[in-house]
């Protein structure tokens, strides 16, 4: 009887801890801080920056590569480690071109993911591929998550379906592992979205630590969104 009570109390404490943890990691519970400037930067975490980027296909890849190029001083510094997720060979080839163009010297690791959803695909086929993507991406996301441990890190996402699955895994690992720091998911909504969010945007609005839009109209419509002008 006593033992059962101890187990119950233990489970209750664990439940409470994870509930508090959930509240702590879900960004919409936190005060939005768009005004954090480099001048106010209080670097608690030292070391080399590790960045995970996901290249979708076509326009998404183009925007992500321009983002990397525009902010290469920070994101592509020689001491950084860059984890590049991709779901088609064309995206990887496009990244190789950027690497050549910018004479990239940082460490790069590639991760191939299954596409979560093809353009114009039916709901059923989308569901099947999303389940496959969930399983495939779980281990890869866990591997990247463990590599982030106690290092400065960023997860940069910008819209293809697979990035929702990845964000979900990163947040889940952050929640389960009590000693893991914030996953630092930065979602940059596509420049093509002016008045409404994409499906990925609607989902990641609740998960991303920093949710960035590129048109003022969207920021007005979405209170959590941050706006810095056209970034790509």
């Amino acid at each position, binding site marked *: 009887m006593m033992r059962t009570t101890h187990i119950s109390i233990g489970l209750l404490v664990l439940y409470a801890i994870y509930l508090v943890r959930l509240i702590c990691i879900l960004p919409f519970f936190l005060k939005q801080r768009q005004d954090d*400037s480099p001048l106010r*930067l209080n670097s608690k975490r030292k070391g080399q920056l590790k960045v995970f980027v996901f290249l979708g296909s076509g326009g998404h890849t183009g925007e992500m590569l321009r983002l990397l190029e525009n902010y290469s001083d920070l994101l592509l510094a020689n001491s950084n480690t860059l984890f590049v997720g991709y779901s088609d060979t064309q995206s990887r080839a496009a990244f190789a071109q950027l690497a050549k163009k910018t004479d990239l010297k940082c460490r790069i690791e590639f991760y191939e993911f299954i596409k979560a959803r093809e353009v114009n695909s039916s709901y059923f086929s989308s569901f099947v591929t999303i389940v496959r993507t969930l399983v495939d991406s779980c281990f890869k996301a866990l591997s990247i998550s463990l590599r982030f441990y106690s290092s400065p890190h960023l997860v940069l996402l910008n819209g293809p379906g697979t990035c929702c699955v990845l964000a979900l895994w990163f947040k889940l690992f952050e929640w389960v592992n009590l000693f893991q720091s914030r996953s630092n998911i930065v979602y940059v909504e*596509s420049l093509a979205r*002016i*008045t409404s969010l994409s499906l990925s945007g609607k989902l990641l609005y609740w998960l991303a630590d920093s949710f960035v839009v590129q048109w003022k109209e969207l920021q007005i419509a979405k209170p959590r969104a941050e706006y810095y*002008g056209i970034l790509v």
Partner: protein
Amino acid sequence: MKTLLVTCGATVSFPKLICSVISAPFIGELKSDGFERLIVQFGKDYREEFAGKLDNELFIEVECSISTAELGTVNTPVSRTLMASHFEIIGIDFSSKIQHVIKEHADLVISHAGTGSILDSLRLAKPLIICVNDDLMNNHQQQIADKFESYGYVWACSAKPKDLLRCLTRSRSEVLKPFQATRSDAFEGRLKFLAFS
């Protein structure tokens, strides 16, 4: 060699735009405007159709005036010249050096309303006509085209030949506003804050 570049994007082809730019009235207007070359980046899985549209008595197959390497394409370009004059049409499915092609060869660009293609031309300060593909699912292209046109950065129209001709006429007399490239220190600061705090 005065050149018009038409880009349909890497993923989905844009048959309406392609048909309009290789139509006789449009080519006639280009020639009267001093253009001597038309480069069409027609997109995925459209090579046979594109070549088929040019396989008639008006065109002769010729060697491409720009090398495959410079065009940044793996496949041999479709290259034709107009029988009665020095007007060349080059067709490529995809270019890995599209920015180079725009910078070095294009005097005017007609693009689908994909943000990547738009920004490539604007950043290279090339006059740009945006053509909206209204066949696409969830058409954000119209919004994008309207937005950029409202800032005076581009001319926007549909893929109909008369609309394209109207924009071509406008491009002779009107001057577009230069696009201001943006790089946000505040955004970089936000990234640093997230990563290091």
